């Protein structure tokens, strides 16, 4: 049951983007179409799950005073791995995501989970926490990406839905990201109030 909770809490209840307001930069910057959003989610999931796993495995040998530099080295190792894999196998995606791939290292979600969860919990729960948080991040990112791509370019995952000539281009430009996330948060507030 508690393993289920470790997995489950990141998806809606403690959704990193919509609830905890962390990891905003990549969420807004790469969500101009659904494909980029999915690519970014996979990269973050890889780094988050692997670093949670290693940090949890090493937690008994990590001196308390220098734990933050150790976390950062572990995280940046996995970021460099995903950076180079993406550069080698998915060059188009890498060009679209740009500087946001190396910037995963300062994504507050990853260091935040390392400090708040993986450092204090056994390996299995930490990995499940990483999976749940990654799904929550992917949920927020891909839903914003789908809305923006649909309204701004008339397509979803690159498949045309309606004529792009009548689409509101503003939605794929920077202001569209702010509008979409603002309205999404307001709707979530409304839904919460109704449930209570």
């Amino acid at each position: 049951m508690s393993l289920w909770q470790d997995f489950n809490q990141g998806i809606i209840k403690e959704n990193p983007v919509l609830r905890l307001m962390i990891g905003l930069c990549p969420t807004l910057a790469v969500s101009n179409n659904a494909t980029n959003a999915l690519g970014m989610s996979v990269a973050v999931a890889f780094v988050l799950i692997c670093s949670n796993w290693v940090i949890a495995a090493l937690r008994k040998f990590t001196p308390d005073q220098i734990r933050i530099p150790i976390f950062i080295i572990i995280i940046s190792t996995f970021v460099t791995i995903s950076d180079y894999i993406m550069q080698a196998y998915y060059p188009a995606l890498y060009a679209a995501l740009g500087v946001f791939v190396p910037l995963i290292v300062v994504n507050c979600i990853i260091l935040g989970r390392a400090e708040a969860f993986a450092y204090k919990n056994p390996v299995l729960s930490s990995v499940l926490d990483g999976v749940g948080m990654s799904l929550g991040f992917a949920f927020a990112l891909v839903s914003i990406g789908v809305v923006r791509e649909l309204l701004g370019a008339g397509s979803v995952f690159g498949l045309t839905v309606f004529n792009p000539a009548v689409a509101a281009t503003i939605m794929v430009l920077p202001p569209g990201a702010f509008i979409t996330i603002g309205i999404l948060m307001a709707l979530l507030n409304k839904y919460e109030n109704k449930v209570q």
Partner: protein
Amino acid sequence: MELFGIFFAAFLINNILLIRFIALCSFFGVSTKIDTSVGMSLAVIFVMTISSAVSWVIFHAILAPFHLEFLRTATFILTIAALVQLEELYLKKMIPTLYRAMGIYLPLITTNCAILAVAFLAIDYRYDFVQSMVYSLGVSFGYSLAIILFAYVRERMALAPIPKWFQGYPIAFITAALMSLAFLGFTGLFGL
């Protein structure tokens, strides 16, 4: 003229907060009051200038000659973390007034992705040393302009009657959208 172009492109046209979407956590986190956003801006201008100079030198004098480019992520983040600590010690001793103005924002800056992003971007754009200094000044001034303007709007908004579901963060995002729309108007300025 070329340096002027780099400065204005970084300052207005590619504004780091409103157009590039870097360092948004601090943009929404500390912009509730004008004083806190001024403190954060000072800290960003100070740290960004020094850390981009240091990381440029490290990349071009150590990493590039030995073909260690793959270490740049780890090297830059550790350099910036160490540098912020040194700057904190130095300011506390030498310029205590500035240190007090920056307050707790100086240590928080280690996790401000703008600092790391500028170090990466200056290398990706293949800027030389002077160009990368001008670029980091442009970025940090653009950061200050956007966050201080946003703080003024948010102070006014605290008194406005806002629909219930939009109170707090949702309306802040809508405001940021309108500001971003205004900054989008700078596209094409000076033919950039």
